[in-house]
């Protein structure tokens, strides 16, 4: 294992965390909800890929489209059914609902697909490339590029488009956004769609790397991405990417020095340290509770 290989591993894992963290951070940014069901959306995305390719024998490209589209749809549906009715309820109610949705998806998947892991077929036939004495995984490169492009598209969407401006307006002041003529419900749905589509992309990249789907795969992945989002400063898009990469690198580094059983502990220790030193995260804004 050379240095280059380790860096690529860190970037690959970090990229997946970053994509998932982006979804967390977007939903939090707009309705101040920690969407604990977000990790489970990835699980559903992985199962959609499995069904599409292993059961229905569809082309991987179609599986990709179905997974991303399915996740986006699921995200919107979860918001409409579970969260939207609680828009004016105390924040704790909607948080607990999110945990409920998470259990619902996990147990639903177990009911439908069983508890054993399903092997997701390969999306691309990608042997490693040898560069000098390092083995470069093509899947790692794909993961990194896809994440970079997704982040760039998302940043453009949020900063430069009308819908993106509406999202930022709703995120800052929902009432004032309504007075501008913004349809707040549509904007929130759109945010869920985008965040969940990113989870769908994450599901495919994760399946490429680990090739299996289990009902509980979203729990640890979601939790790590949540750590990444908080680490980077929840609500911040660049923060989610930085947080994701940091968590990814931390895990790879700890594994590389032979302490892989400690990798989860290190990630959570990192979170604790950041919360003590800088509670709003690396790029987080100081929170001003509105009166």
């Amino acid at each position, binding site marked *: 294992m050379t240095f280059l290989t380790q860096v690529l591993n860190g970037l690959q894992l970090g990229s997946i965390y970053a994509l998932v963290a982006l979804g967390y951070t977007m939903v939090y940014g707009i309705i101040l909800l920690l969407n604990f069901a977000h990790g489970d959306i990835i699980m559903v995305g992985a199962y959609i890929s499995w069904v599409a390719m292993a059961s229905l024998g569809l082309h991987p490209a179609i599986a990709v489209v179905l997974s991303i589209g399915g996740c986006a749809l699921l995200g919107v549906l979860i918001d409409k059914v579970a969260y939207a009715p609680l828009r004016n309820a105390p924040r704790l109610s909607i948080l607990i609902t999110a945990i409920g949705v998470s259990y619902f998806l996990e147990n639903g998947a177990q009911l439908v697909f069983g508890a054993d892991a399903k092997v997701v077929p390969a999306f691309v036939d990608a042997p490693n490339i040898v560069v000098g004495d390092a083995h470069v995984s093509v899947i790692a490169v794909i993961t990194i590029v896809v994440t970079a492009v997704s982040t760039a598209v998302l940043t453009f969407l949020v900063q430069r488009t*009308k819908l993106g*401006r*509406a999202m*930022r*307006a709703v995120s*800052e*002041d929902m*009432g*004032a*956004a*309504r*007075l*501008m*003529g*913004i*349809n*707040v419900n549509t904007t929130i749905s759109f945010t869920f769609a985008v965040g969940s589509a990113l989870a769908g992309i994450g599901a495919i990249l994760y399946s490429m790397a680990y090739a299996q789907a289990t009902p509980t795969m979203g729990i640890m992945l979601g939790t790590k991405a949540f750590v990444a989002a908080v680490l980077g400063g929840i609500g911040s898009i660049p923060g989610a990417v930085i947080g994701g990469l940091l968590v990814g690198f931390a895990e790879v580094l700890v594994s590389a020095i032979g302490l892989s059983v400690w990798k989860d502990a290190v990630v959570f220790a990192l979170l604790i340290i950041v919360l003590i030193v800088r509670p709003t995260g690396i790029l987080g804004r100081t929170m001003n509770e509105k009166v």
Partner: protein
Amino acid sequence: MALLSVRDLHVSYGAIKAVRGISFDIERGEIVTLIGANGAGKSTTLNTIAGLIKPDSGSIELSGESIVGVRPHKIVEKGLALCPEGRRVFTRMSVAENLDMGGYTRTDAENAETIKVVYERFPRLRERVGQFAGTMSGGEQQMLAMGRALMSKPDLLMLDEPSMGLAPILVQEIFDIIKELNRQGTTILLVEQNASMALSIADRGYVLEVGRTVKSGSGKELLHDDDVRKAYLGG
């Protein structure tokens, strides 16, 4: 037909009745003011007209068409804009982006035209086009909030406490701007605690007390009315 007609409006927050039977009319081209103490129901009335709060009963008609139960973003499209209490500009957006949000219901081509008019009215906004709204002074934020509301090209502009927290010289400036906007054809519904200023520029006024309209008249009449003077104008 009145541009806006409110009849027997009742609004409550849970068990608390904030508005208990308010009625008033606004004709096209007028400045109408609602004055009254804190808790008289002034802001609640504006927020209800804008669709942010659902009334318990009563009617609100814009050019004869009922807008009760219409969602706020649709009401903006119908030509009614509310410049809310406390300004509520988007602090993390630039001046240009704030104005852009104001024109959300309009096309880019329309906005390009309207923004020229807004900059003409508020030259200071043009100077600060790239500045984050959160870093501006209260007076500038009020101008931005008004400019933002104007971007939707409203037939009726509702202003909730535009002078709140501003230095006297700025208050005068804001009121001059309101008069000028009106002269150029915008109908204005003004809610103010600064009753003397509001009545001095208003065509007509309504006095609100604990959620009811208790008195109405021309701005001048109310300005010289003994009860009004005692209650709201400091003798």
